[in-house]
């Protein structure tokens, strides 16, 4: 029975490698389980489709739509100008603006692509004008864009919480600590790195001038800044579920985009709707077939067999955590974040519990690793989008992106694994 589970996993990997669409890769795994493992498809569609009707999953399309509306509405521009007023006179300040703005946008959107899509077109040319190399600016914004997956709300954490039956609100908070750490690390690295560039700084202003500039920009940014307060305040104030908060954020973003920032048009709304609907459809159909496959694997006791097999090799907690991190890193290089979570979270959960890693800490470990996958080639969707937006070759972006990754990301990956408080302190503070 375990042999058929291993064969199904092997077939899945081969199909992935060949470039077969992910939903069909899972379909191939299901076929193996049916024809070799003796599992049945009778009732599987009924069960799987019923699972998709979960209100929890509905938060995904709504957060994706809120993010896409925001990208085209001009909200990002107001946020950028607001953050810029505080640091534009510091050498490297514009780089900090990029990183912090991506984090703020992460508190509105649940996706890793929104930051680069919303901020990149505005800030990359501006950073180049101020003396930053274009490839560096693109790499910094693409890497910071991943904060969208770590600062709550996060689509990947919704999927993780759902597939592992862990509190989604606790999962959201688990990645907040690592996310803030990464934001700080990127900002600090940028301040050091920027010393090498011949930067043009804004003229110094008097205190009175600064206050008036800051207050006028804050006024313009208020409708944008209300959005994260609405979402996170609504969720953690106990007023709304994540799904309801996502819906409210869409309904709020529409008039703000149409009438206040005026970047949103009927045409761009339809474009955003199609983009969000298509992205969500591709994810959901993959979830449907992966769920059916997971159910078949669980019925054959495959996760426990995997734990026994790994424990046959080693029981050392440190070594196992390193191995899991390496495996997640490699997986992130070839598949996207949600796929990686669906593939391995249910399989690795028993192993994590056996070595006393709580599901909430594992949420942070898997969240940080899979988010990093967005900028690690060959499957580096966020980096590729960044290169396209920044109009630079991918090969030019890779070097600065990898340096930022090594300095800002890799240490946080290990801290998240070996310092549980980084991911557990904030959820504990909120009572999870």
């Amino acid at each position: 029975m375990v042999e058929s589970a291993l064969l199904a996993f092997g077939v899945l990997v081969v199909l992935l490698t060949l470039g077969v669409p992910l939903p069909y890769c899972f379909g191939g795994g299901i076929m193996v389980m049916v024809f070799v493992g003796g599992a049945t498809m009778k009732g599987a569609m009924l069960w799987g489709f019923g699972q998709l009707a979960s209100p929890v999953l509905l938060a995904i399309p709504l957060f994706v739509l809120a993010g896409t509306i925001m990208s085209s509405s001009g909200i990002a521009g107001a946020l950028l100008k607001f953050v810029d007023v505080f640091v534009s006179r510091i050498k490297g300040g514009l780089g900090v603006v990029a990183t912090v703005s991506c984090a703020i946008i992460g508190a509105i959107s649940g996706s890793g692509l929104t930051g680069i899509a919303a901020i990149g077109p505005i800030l990359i040319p501006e950073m180049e004008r101020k003396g930053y190399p274009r490839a560096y600016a693109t790499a910094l914004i693409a890497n910071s864009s991943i904060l969208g997956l770590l600062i709550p709300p996060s689509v990947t954490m919704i999927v993780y919480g759902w597939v592992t039956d862990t509190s989604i609100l606790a999962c959201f908070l688990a990645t907040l600590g690592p996310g803030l750490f990464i934001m700080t690390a990127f900002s600090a690295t940028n301040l050091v790195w920027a010393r090498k560039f011949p930067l043009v700084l804004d003229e110094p202003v008097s205190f009175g001038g600064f206050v008036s500039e800051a207050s006028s920009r804050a006024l313009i940014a208020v409708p944008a800044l209300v959005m994260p307060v609405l979402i996170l305040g609504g969720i953690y104030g106990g007023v709304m579920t994540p799904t309801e908060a996502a819906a409210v954020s869409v309904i709020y973003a529409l008039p703000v985009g149409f009438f206040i920032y005026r970047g949103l048009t009927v045409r761009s709304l339809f474009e955003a709707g199609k983009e969000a609907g298509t992205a969500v459809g591709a994810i959901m159909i993959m979830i449907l077939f992966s769920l059916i496959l997971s159910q078949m694997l669980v019925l054959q006791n495959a996760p426990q067999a995997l734990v026994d097999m790994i424990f046959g090799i080693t029981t050392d907690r440190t070594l196992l955590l390193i191995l899991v991190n390496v495996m997640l890193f490699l997986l992130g290089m070839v598949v996207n974040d949600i796929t990686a979570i669906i593939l391995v979270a249910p399989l690795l959960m028993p192993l994590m519990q056996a070595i006393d890693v709580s599901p909430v800490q594992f949420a942070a470990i898997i969240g940080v690793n899979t988010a990093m996958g967005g900028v690690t080639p060959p499957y580096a969707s966020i980096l590729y989008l960044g290169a396209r937006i920044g109009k630079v070759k991918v090969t030019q972006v890779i070097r600065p992106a990898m340096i930022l990754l090594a300095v800002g990301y890799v240490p946080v990956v290990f801290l998240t694994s070996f310092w549980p408080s980084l991911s557990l302190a904030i959820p504990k503070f909120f009572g999870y």
Partner: protein
Amino acid sequence: MMDRLFKVVLTGLLLIVAFFQAVQVVTRYVFEIPVMGLEEMLIYPTLWLYVLGSVNASREDSQIRANVLEIFLKTPRGRLKLSVLAEVISLGIVGWLTWWGWDFFRYSLRVWKESPTLYVPTFYSDCAVFIGLVLMTLWTVASLIKHLRALAADKVSSGVEVNNG
């Protein structure tokens, strides 16, 4: 034409879902009168959104893929051959899944289950699986034909080049 249709349908479904949820928040927390059956009604546009979104992903060839092997292939012809292979395999799998979608369709039609509060037949959402899988199969066939033609054209042009050379 098809692009415009998907723009309207997907945006419409998303906005309906967002609006229903927002109405639920307002009625529940502001007026403290939850609307009975609203969540039940949400299931229908939600499931159709998922399925039609995936159909459009197949139409636009934007289903999620890993494409690991493609990186190691140097020539466009090699990549084209790999696409054809991946599509032939995809067609076999999606065809098999469509068969089981048909099984689910017939089951749902026969049982004619109704939702608990509003008694709306669940068949109206269940049938989305089969319809969606049929459309995804057709787009896979279309994509396979397109790539086979490109491969044949490439062979002809390579032959011409050889002859000319």
